[in-house]
């Protein structure tokens, strides 16, 4: 496989995942906003911006932190690179550059995803914003499904590897921001707003039902952290992403004979992850833990690029 193709496939996986995550975040935030009294609603949109590292860029637009402007900024704003439309554009450009490595189904799914946004300028009110982001999530699932029906070769594995690396980063950021920034002053831990915030997290990673199955004691932050950090059965948990990266690197090594620094780093991470206990993480500092995880994830990303000679 061409080095350029490998890089484009990997980034295709990352961008689709990033678009999907942003769509989920917007969906959860619309819900949270609708449920809460107005100051909390505003805080919800502020937190959505900080999860996606978009606070400063948004502040520069001079708009108020409320549903319409923030939702538009995160979905359809062509002028800043952190919007879903721009992620989709990047995903589509990558897909187009490597069309021959994709099946027709997979390409069509990406193209349809992009067409969903082409020529739209406003996400509209809450209901139509929900429609829009649900469309993104549905088409992204369609793409994932198409990828699963491709030959199990390097192309498929690289797309999935990009997605797994991206997913790990997204979940870590989501947890970090929500846990430390969002409890509005004067609100009690365990109060209504707090509860809603935690529900938002679970919704963003589609884990509301999973939580109910696993924990019988109602919504508790420590449990949510346990679920999202340590439970490998949950596809968006850090443990699951870490495992998936190791498996994908193994499969790639088997097919290409390429093995090296990225494999060593990923295996080291999984060994540490298996010893991780969530209550210890909370005691010694969740924020520091997540920060280290995000940094490590970025280093792994760079090692992958070297190992597969991305150009």
């Amino acid at each position, binding site marked *: 496989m061409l080095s350029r193709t*490998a890089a484009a496939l990997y980034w295709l996986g990352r961008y689709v995942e990033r678009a999907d995550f942003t769509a989920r975040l917007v969906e959860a935030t619309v819900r949270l906003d609708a449920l809460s009294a107005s100051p909390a609603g505003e805080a919800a949109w502020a937190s959505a911006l900080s999860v996606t590292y978009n606070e400063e860029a948004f502040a520069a637009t001079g708009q108020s932190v409320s549903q319409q402007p923030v939702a538009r900024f995160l979905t359809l704003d062509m002028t800043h690179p952190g919007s879903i439309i721009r992620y989709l554009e990047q995903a589509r450009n990558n897909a187009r550059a490597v069309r021959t490595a994709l099946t027709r189904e997979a390409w*069509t799914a990406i193209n349809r995803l992009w067409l969903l946004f082409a020529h739209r300028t406003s996400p509209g009110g809450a209901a139509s914003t929900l429609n829009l982001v649900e469309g993104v999530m549905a088409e992204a699932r369609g793409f994932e499904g198409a990828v699963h029906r491709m030959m199990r070769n390097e192309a498929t594995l690289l797309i999935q590897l990009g997605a797994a690396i991206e997913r790990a980063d997204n979940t870590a950021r989501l947890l970090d921001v929500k846990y430390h920034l969002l409890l509005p002053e004067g609100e009690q831990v365990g109060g209504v707003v707090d509860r809603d915030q935690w529900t938002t997290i679970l919704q963003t990673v589609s884990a509301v039902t999973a939580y109910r199955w696993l924990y019988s004691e109602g919504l508790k932050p420590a449990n949510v952290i346990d679920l999202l950090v340590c439970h490998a059965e949950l596809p968006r948990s850090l443990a699951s992403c870490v495992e998936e990266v190791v498996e994908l690197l193994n499969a790639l090594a088997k097919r290409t004979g390429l093995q090296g620094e990225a494999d060593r780093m990923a295996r080291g991470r999984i060994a540490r992850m298996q010893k991780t206990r969530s209550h210890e993480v909370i005691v010694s500092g969740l924020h520091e833990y997540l920060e280290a995880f995000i940094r490590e994830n970025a280093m792994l990303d760079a090692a992958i690029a070297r190992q597969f000679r991305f150009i």
Partner: protein
Amino acid sequence: MGARRAFDEIWGHGGPDKPRAEFTALSEWIAETPQSELHRRQQAAEATFRQLGITFAVYGDSDASERIIPFDIVPRIFLHDEWQRLSEGLVQRVEAINAFLEDIYGERRILKEGVLPAELVLRNPQFRPEVAGIRPPHGIWAHICGIDLVRTGPDEFWVLEDNARTPSGVSYMLENREAMIRLCPELFRSFRVAAVDSYSDMLRETMRSVAPDTRGGVPVCVVLTPGHFNSAYYEHSFLADTMGIELVEAADLVVDDDVVYMQTIAGRVKVDVIYRRIDDDFLDPLVFRPDSLLGVPGIISAYRAGNVALINAPGNGIADDKAIYSYMPDIVKFYSGSAAKLPNVETWRCREPQALKYVLEHLDEVVVKLVDGSGGYGMLVGPTASKAEIEAFRAALKAEPHRYIAQPTLALSTVPTMTETGLAPRHVDFRPFVLSGSDGVRVVPGGLTRVALKEGSLVVNSSQGGGTKDSFVLLPDRQGQKQGQTQVQG
């Protein structure tokens, strides 16, 4: 022109009530299928094209950076014996083009014998002295030719243009057929249509057949594209995909010690055959344009060393130059020893004073073209041009006559086509694709029919708003069964 109605591929010189005998089934299909249904199917086809991203970029048009070429649902049909005659003429012509290129960059017999003026070739901007003396692997130059034809009557086919550089459009031939099979399956029960989807296999075989010696291994073949912003990118990816080979950009290739490699995740892999969709000018900055970033430095040197086959060979532009075109009947005669089976359109070379005089006197009747123009740019269609346009061309012709040729305005054949007000005849041309390998010359039974969507217009180029149709080539009759005829009434 004038009162006489153009020949219609389906209706002949008659009208909708009296189709050519072989096409009764098609006229019945048209009559029986409600217009709204035809419209619906056409829209379904276009929606599919949009979804698949079968798009075409129009330069300088920001909004239309991705346009689909309009698709028309009524096919154009060739009878089997019409196709036989055409194919023979195409093979003869492409063999002559190959012989001509071999000669011009080698011995130059044709110039020594005075068949065409030496300076017309040697001083032609399309002539590439850089490749003189190089013989491509297996002596094949024009591996893929697209020969543009027009028709004016039942037996009157004319060659309008030879494309021996990087002819495009073959993906439309294949996608249009896919759309027709899906949307109008009943037509394939009425007509026995030759399949076109073997094109990719034929192209792959052609590519392999011209590989330099690979010591018995399977040659590594690639398609080289300028990138996904190129207007024909869809086609490049389509071809690589259906041949199961890599689609590469210049940045993926590196030349080391006169050997071309592609850079893969497992390191370098030697490349034997490159179907390049990059023009000569941009192919190798060390040899052609030094300012080009598209090219692969050293690729020509590797080619000269015989280590890689380039499809089509660099330097081919001289064979499809419009000034050379007018000599094509002599060229065919010179190399094949017999008269050209496919005639040229009568052509006045404005570089010749007498021809120029004639053209200047008949500007409102003729079509004037730049010898190095393409895509419908830089041309004058006399009968439909305004006074101002004619005068502008008169001045240009007087200033630089050698840059122009002129041809009579032909009554191009028409095919019934969907318009906003129902079916109406629209002018068409036709581009069949001819493949030359070390094992012979083959014509794919089909091609690209382009249709001028504006009433009366003769300009079919997609960059000028033309559309496309599927082109059926019928298989030979089975035991006297009449093609395409169901019950004839009356």
